[in-house]
């Protein structure tokens, strides 16, 4: 039997199941905590840090923290709104993101968060990093300029025998996403499409097909990111 618990987010009374990740419990109560690396039912990566909230006075990532009875969570405070904006800005200066030319524009979580937090000019200097594009595999373009290292593809996309098709390479500022050429050659169209769909940005692109949905009719063109969660519970 799962135990029901009560907690608050910015004063709002919430209910959840003990042990459920805070970010999911919040969503079930109509509270949006932004995520880039998190996906429900997937082992959390805790890597993008944009879901950082304050729990009983301590800063925690909502995607790796289990909900507990009596937790007092601070989410949409000026402090965290600014931190989240800073993280979005940081990702924009770290990679090379040119939204107008990107196939994922309008379906991109990073871009949508940029709008949500009303990013204008990033406060940080651009890094202008050189990143290699990998187009050597049959189904996928790996557009590394846009990678935000969320590890979704690493965690989700496997071959038939459970081996990783994507993995990190290097560390720190030499970190890059790597694709296994041998195993990627065995990818089906469905897996390739899935890889593109779970990528929160425009790093993983399926070859030979593009702009099926025209810009203007895409996911975040009509509704801001997180509004589905917030609207479900009004």
């Amino acid at each position, binding site marked *: 039997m799962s135990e029901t618990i009560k907690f608050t987010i910015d004063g709002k009374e919430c209910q959840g199941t003990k042990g459920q990740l805070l970010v999911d419990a919040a969503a079930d109560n109509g509270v949006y905590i932004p995520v880039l690396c998190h996906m429900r039912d997937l082992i*959390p*990566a*805790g*890597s*993008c*840090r*944009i879901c*950082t909230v304050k729990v009983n006075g301590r*800063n925690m*990532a909502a995607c*790796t*923290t*289990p909900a507990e009875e009596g937790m007092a969570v601070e989410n949409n405070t000026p402090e965290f709104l600014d*931190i989240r904006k*800073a*993280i979005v800005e*940081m*990702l924009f*200066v*770290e990679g090379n993101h040119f939204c107008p030319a990107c196939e994922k524009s309008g379906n991109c979580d990073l871009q949508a968060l940029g709008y949500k937090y009303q990013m204008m000019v990033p*406060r*940080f*200097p651009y*890094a202008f990093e050189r990143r290699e594009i990998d187009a050597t595999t049959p189904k996928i373009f790996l557009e590394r300029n846009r990678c*935000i*290292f969320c*590890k979704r593809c690493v965690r989700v996309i496997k*071959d038939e*025998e459970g*081996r*990783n*098709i*994507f*993995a*990190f*390479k*290097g*560390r*720190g*500022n*030499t*970190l890059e996403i*790597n*694709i*296994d*050429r*041998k*195993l990627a050659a065995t990818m089906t169209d469905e897996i390739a499409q899935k890889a593109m769909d779970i990528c929160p940005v425009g790093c993983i692109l399926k070859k030979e097909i593009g702009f099926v949905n025209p810009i203007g009719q895409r996911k975040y063109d009509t509704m801001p990111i997180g509004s589905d969660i917030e609207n479900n519970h009004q």
Partner: protein
Amino acid sequence: MKEKIISIIKAHGTDTARLMDILLRVQAEFGYVSTEAVSIMATMLHISEVDVVQTLSFYHFFTTDAVGKYAVYMNNSLVSCMMGMKEVVDEFEKQAGIKFGSKTPDGLIGLYYTACIGMNDQEPAALINGIVFTELNREKVRNIVADMKAGKSVNDMVAVIGDGINANPLMKSMVKNNIRKSGPVILADYTLGIGIAKALTTDSKSVIKEVKDSNLRGRGGAGFPTGMKWDFCSRETGVHYVLCNADEGEPGTFKDRVLLTERAYMVFEGMTIGGYAIGAAEGILYLRNEYTYMKAYLENVLNDMRTKNFLGNNILGKGFNFDIRIQMGAGAYVCGEESALIESSEGKRGEPRNRPPFPVQKGYKGKPTIVNNVETFCSVVRISEKGASWYNAIGTSESAGTKLLSISGDCKLPGVYEIAWGMSINEMLEMVGAENVQTVQVAGPSGICLPPKQFDRKIALEDLPTGGSMIVIGQHRDLLKDVVLNFMEFFADESCGSCVTCRSFNMILRNAIEKIVDGHGIKKDVENMLAWSEILRKTTRCGLGQTSSNPISTTIKNFRELYDARVKDVDYQSDFDMQKSVLASCEAVGRSSVVHE
């Protein structure tokens, strides 16, 4: 090559969890890990090639190109630079005819930089094919390179042997212990077996209670109560593990190196007591790659302890089974973080884990695990021997016992000191013969840069906590350029990169301090650095990111005038430097540029 690689993989049980060891063997055997080797490993271990590469590419001492028959890894951390690294580098480059970061066309000599190698009391120091060379100067470098050209083996280049166990035939190292002050707990006379024998006469609960009552707190720097950690772990069911953290990577610490040299038996005895306390049968000593020169000696100590029945089955006839293996690291500071150390021990990238669960719940191979520092385990032995109240009487009310300090930098007597907690910085400086001190870097780069007006503060967990690194910095040093920039480069290199803020902010902050050092800074830059440091501290996953902005934030707080003197009071100043940008092309064409302001 193929057969050899296959046999290495088989020797490690064709086990993916031993990927670190497989890669280390291959690297040692061939001087690099080839694409072919990666492919063979992937096939035999039944993982993808990118999985092999993700571990391979994480560690500093794994390479995919041959490093050279003689691979020089020069320490470029702060104290090495302070003690004259620049001259040594210049001489190496002159003699070898190449720049650092490359190897000679014939593949004979490779020159590379590396982070602190745990020799701060005898800098400048370098590793050459894993052998330590200390107190380098131009003359020594000339001899070394001449020996290389003559094809001499690296072991034979070691002319003068160090003191104590460093002279053991299995170690035969030029490293010096520099033990300057012994205390009652760690460096007092030690006889193998008293602590473990006493522990085995009581039950495991009593051992934990004794450690709890002693108020021993973790000696790696974080100061978590050891007894409490053991208690949590012992309450979990199933197989348990003991890990000893000998990944002494904080620039400026070297006391664990001395303990592993002079108190190896004590370290292993402490691990065994830990194993008995929590109910583990297996222990792992995670030894940093820089200390590979000790491995043969340590293996020999383990064998000796097995022979004497201090390890193995039915230890001292008390029915307790415990053994220890050594896991070598491969060069990654972040592996000193306990969950990253566990990941690395499992053959993976040293990325810190998300918590919960904590290692005491789910650690090595997902089983309850205690991870303790080398010095912590040594302390446990003495606590078992002399009792909690004896131990507790030493030190301060909140910091029981003694602490080993690794003191280096601008002082007459760098080395290892065992002090009772509670000593003031002033007393410490007098002890080491330091004058005209600008600052003391307490607890290494991740600690604080302490101004003289605070030198009356006490070295204690409740005032100035430290894992032991104490770097004395004289008045004549350029604090921002020599110290802060060096530290930030270190953190930018050593961030595992898996969380956004640590990966990105350390680069951003590194560039920001460089902008100021280069004279392009403005007042706003200083405010920005403070604000950005705060975001990094609040959002990052592990201790590395939570402390990596300290070189900047503590110097802005304590030495604001140094920043103010360097920045301009204008709204905007580009960090673009025309002269610097065209320097390489000017050199190439043999001209100089004229820039009009």
